[in-house]
């Protein structure tokens, strides 16, 4: 499948979950395809990084369900901040663990999962739709984190086969399997599509993070996480993140022309070519 095919299957107003974490293994090729599409009024669910900022800057976001938005090496994303400070998007702000629980509940077809996270804070006050529940095994009150059902999930992995088995070589799989499990349609971009027989030669069995029940479509997207990291292949492109974060106000138009409103080959050329990005060492935090 191509990125155009992915966009063609999505609709205005959908709830879309985006895998990865902050500036780590974000499906940015797919995100850029959304950003230059005519899609609108999206609800985005994310441990946010430049995926959120870019979709905010291009006016795609009606509502954001999130625990944070950060570029990791640059603490705050200016594009997300701009829409928030303009009061331009609706939010559902969650504790990071609550977000995980919401995806997990959706994945395993439960209406909610209980937790203490969020109680006694404004996460509870500002989300009146999130209810509490009394434990049936005692008297304790717990927060009932509702299932976060997704229309679509976008994630990026190192390798996948044509059938939809996905391999993550990075040391943290984040919550990509939960995003896929919580979604009706699951789109997995990868650095390289490989024959099934190669998967276990490329990494130990623990790296096979996504099985075919969790995936509908595979899209080959070399450097598909750039400017976020996809270790061990490449680290965070801090220089590019600085360019991205510096592209505020009128500067965004230039950034968008140069890096968003282009096809994938043009993008790789614009960021300096494949060899340059693949030489970025793994990021140290």
């Amino acid at each position, binding site marked *: 499948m191509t990125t155009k095919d992915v966009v063609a299957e999505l609709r205005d107003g959908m709830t879309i979950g985006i895998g990865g*974490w902050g500036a780590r293994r974000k499906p940015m090729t797919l995100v850029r395809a959304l950003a230059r599409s005519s899609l609108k009024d999206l609800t985005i669910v994310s441990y*946010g990084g430049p995926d959120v900022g870019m979709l905010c800057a291009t006016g795609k976001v009606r509502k954001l369900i*999130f*625990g*944070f*938005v*950060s570029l990791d090496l640059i*603490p*705050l994303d200016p594009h*997300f*901040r701009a829409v*928030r*400070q*303009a*009061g331009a998007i609706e*939010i559902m*702000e*969650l*504790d*990071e*663990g*609550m977000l*995980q629980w919401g995806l997990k509940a959706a994945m395993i077809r439960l209406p909610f999962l209980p*937790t*203490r*996270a*969020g*109680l*006694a*804070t*404004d*996460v509870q*006050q*500002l989300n009146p739709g999130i209810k*509490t529940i*009394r434990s049936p095994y005692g*008297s*304790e*009150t717990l927060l009932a984190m509702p299932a976060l059902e997704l229309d679509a999930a976008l994630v990026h992995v190192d390798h996948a086969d044509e059938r939809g088995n996905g391999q993550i070589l990075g*040391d*943290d*799989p*984040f*919550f990509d399997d939960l995003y896929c499990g919580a979604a009706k349609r699951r789109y997995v971009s990868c650095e390289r599509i490989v024959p099934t027989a190669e998967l276990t030669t490329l990494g130990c069995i623990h790296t096979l993070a996504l099985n075919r029940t969790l995936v509908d479509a595979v899209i080959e997207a070399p450097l598909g996480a750039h400017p976020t990291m996809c270790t061990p292949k490449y680290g965070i492109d801090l220089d590019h993140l600085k360019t991205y974060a510096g592209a505020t106000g009128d500067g965004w138009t230039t950034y968008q022309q140069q890096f968003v409103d282009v096809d994938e080959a043009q993008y790789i050329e614009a960021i300096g070519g494949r060899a340059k990005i693949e030489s970025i060492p793994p990021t*140290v*935090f």
Partner: protein
Amino acid sequence: MADDYTLADLCIVACAEAWRDDGDILASGMGLIPRLAAGLARLTFSPGLLMNDGECRLAAEPIPVGPRAPGYEPQIEGWLPFRRVFELLWSGRRHAMTIPTQIDRFGNINISFIGAADKPKVQLLGVRGIPGNTINHPCSFFVPNHGPRSFVHEVDMVSGCGYDPGRWAPSVRRDFHELRLLVTNLAVLDFQGPDHQVRVRSLHPGVTLDQVREQTSFPLAVVDGVGETPTPTTEQLRIIGEVLDPKNLRASVFKS
């Protein structure tokens, strides 16, 4: 006691005390001073502490801050991807020190936004894991800029829960909630005042109680016989300067 120390060194030593007697739990120091403090605690009086590498690995020793020296590879003793972090912190086997933007007299803290929820004046990070941290395991705080804008009457968004009795429904478990230590550029404080309100424990050398009160928007409790914050020992300064922060990144913390 050594004479040749900086405010950053003093704060690192004071913050390290948060993890005394913590045993084999994950010590998470978020931000430079808390991270160095966790490392100091690990290398001195709390050898059982676990440290992570900022990503998903448990490092057997504190990793020096800043760019890694050529050839340096930290010794890894475990794997801790984010999903295991959440399990670990919900199980209580962690003590985190973070840097809140605002804190009130009950220890409610804010790291999310300043202003109104629907249109904040300043959008910050978001609540991150702070709601789950504060209700599940011990938490401590470092405030590098103790002043009326950080020590406020009421935080704009309660991201981490404090001891405010009005915020706790009677049937919510509170026994996993513990705010332990609060270190600032002026003083060391805790939450052992009346009703667990913020209390001054010691004043940094040269700082008066009046100064701390002037910089705080709410009334402060004070421990009986409030003394001076202990200054770093020669050995503590050696560990900080030679082992944990050889590039002296801490020099930038109080530069302004």
